[in-house]
């Protein structure tokens, strides 16, 4: 069941991205920057004039993304290919990466949280979207911000579900429920994080 849902979700997200990129290319919305024009890490928002803290914010982002990719591959590869749960060294890598990931997320939410607040315009856009009204979305950061908050919200049940299973609180049934919470919230977290990263990169290219 989880395997099928995961496949479906990743295929939908990938197709959506492909269509999105194609439309952007056709409309000429993407501009490729010349080498030397910017810092070589421009794609992650790195600029020459950044302060130390700003650099740290970006490093934390990179670390979080790397951790997410590692955890995604360790957890989902076996599950998507053969519906096998991770064991052995793969599990150790996954578990070892988790604390780094959660610390990075903490740093990200503290450092980026303020910038990711919804502005009045975005708030209106958000309310408008909820009412299915057409809104002016040009240069809107709403989806980027929403996926950021969604990923942050999901990180709490993802981490706490596994943490709780390490205590002698839940029995076998409870453990199974916690595991289900972990895998489904992880799937949602990964999906929102991927969409967030895609939109963030797309924004850098614009």
């Amino acid at each position: 069941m989880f395997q099928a849902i995961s496949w479906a979700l990743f295929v939908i997200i990938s197709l959506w991205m492909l269509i999105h990129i194609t439309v952007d290319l056709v409309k000429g919305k993407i501009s490729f920057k010349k080498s030397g024009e910017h810092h070589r890490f421009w794609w992650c928002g790195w600029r020459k004039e950044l302060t130390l803290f700003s650099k740290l914010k970006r490093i934390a982002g990179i670390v979080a993304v790397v951790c997410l990719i590692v955890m995604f591959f360790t957890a989902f590869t076996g599950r998507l290919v053969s519906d096998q749960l991770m064991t052995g060294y793969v599990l150790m890598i996954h578990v070892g990466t988790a604390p780094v990931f959660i610390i990075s997320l903490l740093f990200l939410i503290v450092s980026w949280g303020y910038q990711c607040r919804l502005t009045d315009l975005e708030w209106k856009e958000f309310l408008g979207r909820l009412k299915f009204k057409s809104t002016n979305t040009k240069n809107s950061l709403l989806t980027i911000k929403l996926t950021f908050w969604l990923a942050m919200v999901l990180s709490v049940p993802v981490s706490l579900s596994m943490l709780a299973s390490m205590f002698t609180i839940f029995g076998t049934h409870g453990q199974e429920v916690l595991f289900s919470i972990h895998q489904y919230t992880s799937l949602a977290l990964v999906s929102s994080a991927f969409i967030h990263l895609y939109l963030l990169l797309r924004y850098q290219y614009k």
Partner: protein
Amino acid sequence: MIQIIRTLASLMLLTCVITQVWSAEKGKGLGDGHDGNRSSISHVITLYDEKDVEIKPSVSQPRPISMRNTCGKCHDYEAMASGWHFHSGTTNVLTGRVGEPWVLTDTRIRTQIPISNRGWKGAYKPSDIDMSAWKFLKQFSSHFPGGNYGEMEPSDDDEDADPEEFLRWPISGKYEINCLACHHADRKQNQSDSALQAARENFRWAATVASGLATVKGAASELDDFYDPETEYGIVTSYDKSRFDANNKVFLDIVRKPPSNRCYYCHSNQDLKTPGKYEWIHNEDVHLASGMSCSDCHRNGVDHMITRGDIEPNHNPHSSSKYLEAFDLKKAASYSCSGCHLGNPNAVDASNKMGGHLGAPIPEHKGIPPIHFEKLSCTACHSGKLPEGKTGRVRTARIHKLGLHGKHAMNKQLPHVITPVFAKAENGKISPHNMIWPSFWGVKTNDVVKPLPPILVREIASDELGLETDNPERLNDWIELSEEQIAKVLKLINDEYKSEDEKPVSEAVYIAGGSLFVLNNKGEIVSTAHEAAEPYKWPIAHDVRPASQSLGSNGNCADCHSQDSPFIFGNVEIDTPIKPGEEQTLSMTEFGGLDPSYYQSFAFTFLFRPWMKVIVIIASALIGLVLLLFALKGIDRIVKTAGKNK
């Protein structure tokens, strides 16, 4: 007229015979059913001897009881004989899960061979070592339930039968199934007496004496080959007349469900860490301590196919389809550990689906990730001795002939049964096992090793093995065997197996301590690994410890996931007559099929687990607080927006 009378007489005779046969058939199995009344049935019964003659204690030479004829009057003897305890000698025997074998030991020739006719890996069939039914009884009848090999008397036209055995069988009689060995609740039932009679080759008398109904004088083993049991009385049976009523009937305290005390005679273990005078410190199996008996879980129908607790609701014990055919899975699985404690979802009976038979607590396994239940059997954490740095030893009733009292008591130490060994069972789960290291002289043909009968080895290499030495020195219970001795004996065996062109048709081998020894072209001894040298191990389930003494109880992961955990990294003793004084061990990981470096790394991560918990708790709490902060700000905005709309 005479012709008519003759015809009528013949017809009457025929009618009588048919009526008799029909009555006998009608009575057969009469007592096997259950009419639903829970009260026990009083067995005030007539006893019959093997000639189906009623036993009267007052006659001058009464014969011993025949269980086939006495119990068989109301119970289906043949159906019972198809059960686990009684069918192992038959051809196409049911294999079943690997179990405790018989072990043929001869310490003088440093031999211990696991024996079983069930085709278990590592065990040899009696026929492999030319062990006839008679020889089997001579070796193992002390803890033998009867039937099976006990009734395999060679027929008159059996040309392969040993002439001497052919003569001895009628003197000793058949060792019929001893129904009383299990179902007689009378405290007078004494299987040690049965063993004594069997040691005297008084097989016919074993059940009678064990029941306490009679005493027997004389030993079949001392009677000459031409003794006539029909006309001579070298063995005298004296019944306790006070046990018979005026109708020559006897009350036998027969119970449908055997008391545990009856099972114990053949199914006991002695922990050798604290044997003898400190035996009192040991606890019983938690089920028995709570008032249950063995047969509460190990149940059976008339066919006596006792459930072995290995058929779990969701796991077949192995690939033997025949084994599964022998049981009704929907019922048998309800009496496994998980079937009883967690329920059998496939059961027909609604209460069996729920589990909790006889008040079995339904375990919560708090803090234990479910993956453990896929990798480990229930017994891995709950049964046997708690693992220590090095494996311990036990003695078992059948292998070490425990429970023999008086002058025929034994104090066998070999073979050393190593326990607990956490190895992969046939269902792929790690389970605790008992284990012995086979040790024997044999021959290898086309890479297949077969043991040589000990009597043959004794003949071939009497001097080289020092058989004539009185009270040889023993180290670790073994008489030490040097490599020079092995080389000499192997040479002698090779000489024995030479063909006409002076080339040995089979290669002589010696198996011990997990190695196979052969002679190379230079006549030097070489040891190699071989499947035949692998230890023989069988899964164990008892004694079950209380939940609080289980591995991982109270979420103590370090019971197994620590760098010196005996469960994973314990040392398993290698038992061998070669340098027996030296400690030789193998890592437990070898048996569990585990990667030691991975488990070391995994155990290492548990050192950081408390830190990780703290980090994740703090980080999650802070993330939660930040989220709450922004959520409150969002609510603030909603409230303000709502307030602006007058």
